């Protein structure tokens, strides 16, 4: 096993895209197999130091940044153990890089539907964070595609969990060979969600580990469900103007949670609904860009016309007549369409470029970004959308709004220039989180909680809910070995 102890060897493991600066650790263990993972755990137990699992550093909430102790990097657990085309499944070491896996699948005409956007991420990290991806609108997040995992526990055992094997009984108890755990009493919202432990009556133990952000054990191996390679797709970008949302007053007057009022106009939400409800279209993703996003993107795409909004649609067929029918009711400034490989790839870049440019900006100004990642159930989305628009009108801080509008999930990113602006941004952030909580939504749809969002998780599930998570953690990881400070602070474990 490789063990790195020199500061200059460790330093690259102390960061991710959150730009958090507190990371420190005494050593990095790089096991090649399960035996070495167990050996690492044994050593951490002996030294009585916490152990933080490290993926590729693509996370945004500091999940892999260690708050002391040692790091276990899964980078050498990177074998594709098998790809079984007949049964459409693959078994992989947890350190396999997603990009490499996808290319292997491509050569076998297979596809991994969660398709997370950060291609350099490790597949085990995708499972540990329930990563969602470019086609989440169509296929959902990682959870749905995980059939089996192997996890090294702090009790120095390997637990092999196949979906369906360990199910919560009527009392909410799951019994495994190494522990008995009572599942939390709260219910995870039935939407895109990456906030805290998953919980639901009659749940599967595997779902507790998926999205547990490295706090319960070290995932060593995963078995994933696959589908046949996707048919050719095309991308269309629709540039729109003057899509007015009704005022709150009008909407309230019409009663019924704003929805009625908002749906009456020819606004963007109505357009989204008509795309979602059109059975003839075969859509993979619907992404939203506000005027500020387009302003930033102009650096890379100078031909962007001046307009208010753009929608990015990836789809299977080009039913141009249907599109014309849908779009003629709206104020369309221009449409860009790409179906040959060159144009398609250029337009994919339209989607990827914005988060890249934003992250670059934050790295430059050495700030942690204030990025709202909430999502709400579909019927509440118009209200949230309206709320975002109002927030945009009133804030003095620069911002962009973009993201996965097909899944009722937009990113509202603030660009604070100084501490005062940062405070304002955080105050707005908290307002948004309250909105999400009111609507039974989630405080984090895809970024996760990590070390950045403890407070918001507590707003979502209440102190009691987070205490329940800590209780689960104490049962499965009685030595508090793994993922110190991820999801909830250490002190909660000692209460």
């Amino acid at each position, binding site marked *: 096993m490789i063990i790195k102890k020199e500061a200059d060897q460790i330093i690259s493991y102390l960061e991710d895209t959150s730009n958090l600066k507190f990371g420190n650790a005494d050593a990095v263990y790089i096991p090649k197999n399960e035996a070495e993972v167990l050996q690492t755990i044994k050593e951490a137990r002996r030294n009585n130091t916490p152990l933080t699992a490290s993926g590729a550093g693509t996370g945004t909430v500091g999940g892999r940044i260690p708050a002391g102790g040692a790091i276990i990097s899964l980078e050498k657990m990177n074998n594709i153990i098998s790809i079984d085309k007949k049964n459409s499944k693959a078994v992989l070491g947890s350190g396999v890089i997603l990009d490499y896996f996808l290319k292997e699948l491509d050569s076998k005409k297979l596809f991994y539907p969660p398709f997370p956007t950060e291609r350099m991420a490790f597949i085990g990290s995708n499972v540990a964070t329930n990563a969602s991806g470019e086609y989440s609108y169509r296929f959902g997040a990682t959870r749905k595609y995980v059939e089996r995992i192997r996890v090294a526990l702090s009790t120095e055992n390997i637990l092999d969990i196949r979906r369906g094997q360990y199910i919560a009984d009527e009392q909410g108890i799951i019994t495994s060979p190494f522990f008995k755990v009572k599942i939390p009493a709260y219910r995870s919202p039935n939407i895109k969600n990456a906030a805290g432990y998953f919980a639901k009556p009659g749940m599967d133990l595997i779902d507790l580990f998926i999205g547990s952000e490295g706090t319960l054990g070290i995932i060593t191996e995963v078995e994933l469900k696959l589908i046949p390679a996707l048919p050719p797709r095309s991308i*269309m970008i629709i540039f729109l103007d003057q899509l007015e949302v009704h005022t709150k007053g009008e909407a309230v007057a019409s009663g019924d949670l704003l929805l009625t009022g908002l749906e009456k106009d020819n606004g963007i939400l109505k357009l989204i609904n008509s795309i979602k409800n059109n059975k003839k279209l075969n859509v993979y993703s619907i992404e939203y860009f506000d005027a500020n996003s387009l302003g930033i993107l102009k650096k890379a795409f100078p031909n962007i016309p001046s307009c208010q909004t753009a929608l990015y649609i990836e789809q299977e067929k080009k039913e141009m007549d249907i*599109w014309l029918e849908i779009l003629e009711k709206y104020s369309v400034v221009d449409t*860009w*369409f790409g179906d040959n*490989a*060159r*144009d398609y790839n250029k337009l994919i870049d339209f989607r990827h470029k914005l988060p890249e440019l934003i992250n670059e900006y934050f790295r430059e100004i050495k700030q942690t970004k204030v990025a709202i990642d909430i999502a709400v159930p579909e019927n509440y989305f118009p209200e949230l959308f309206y709320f975002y628009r109002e927030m945009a009108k009133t804030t003095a801080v620069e911002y962009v709004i973009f993201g996965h509008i097909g899944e009722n999930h937009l990113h509202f990113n603030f660009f604070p220039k100084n501490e005062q602006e940062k405070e304002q941004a955080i105050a707005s952030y908290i307002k948004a989180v309250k909105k999400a909580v009111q609507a039974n939504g989630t405080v984090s749809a895809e970024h996760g909680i990590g070390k950045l969002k403890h407070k918001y998780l507590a707003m979502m599930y209440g102190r009691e809910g987070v205490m329940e998570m800590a209780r689960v953690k104490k049962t499965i990881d009685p030595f508090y070995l793994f993922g110190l400070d991820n999801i909830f602070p250490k002190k909660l474990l000692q209460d």
Partner: protein
Amino acid sequence: MNTIVCIKQVPDSEHIQEVTINPETNTLERNKIPAVINPFDVNAIEEAIRIKEKHGGKVTIVTMGPPQAEEALRTALAMGADEAILLTDMAFAGSDTWATAKTLAKAVEKIGGFDLVIFGKQAIDGDTAQVGPEVAEALSLPQITYVSKLDVEDKKIKGRRTVEDAYEEVEALMPCIITVTKDINEPRFASIRGILKAKKAEIIKWGKDDLGMSDEETGLNGSATQVVKIFSPPRRGKGEMIEGVSADEKTSNLVEKLRADKII
């Protein structure tokens, strides 16, 4: 201000791995991979449309090729061209650059009333960069090749001609011919309205007789050159990654391997 753009349909280089060559006919097996407009020609179309947007007039697209080249013309129409002409005839088969240029020149003459003819600097399949200049010679028109920036003034154009490590500013009186590089513009994408309009548009088809050409002038007969053989180079061996945690370790592993293979 009327512009003619001559384009070529080529195999999509994004699918380069799938390209095969028919050993008997010495030609690319085109039907096996998707076809696209030659990338430099897309810049040519874009430039013509920009000129139209600024100075008025119309854009006519011409291509010589098999019936399926119609698809390339429809893509050009979807971008915003006004008219498309397909030069298609069994007699054109086997044309080299000279026969192609003569045929295109006849078509340009037949269209008439133009101020500017634009080509991409070369096609990515043949890579000759000859057809544009040859058409200019055939029509005795001034030409500026490798244009990376174009200004249209009253009766003349000013082109920035990219040469190695420098550029030249060249003026020419219209009508004239230019060939363009990728740097000249960022081509637009087709729009939905454009695609629907292009779908319904009529494509004009001209054969040898429409151009008043003889059998001797066209196709293989009219070609000064002939491809004797075309083949795929033998595949190079697969590279090997030298493992190692540090640069030092990788270096010593490499040296060890070179020694073992008796290279050093």
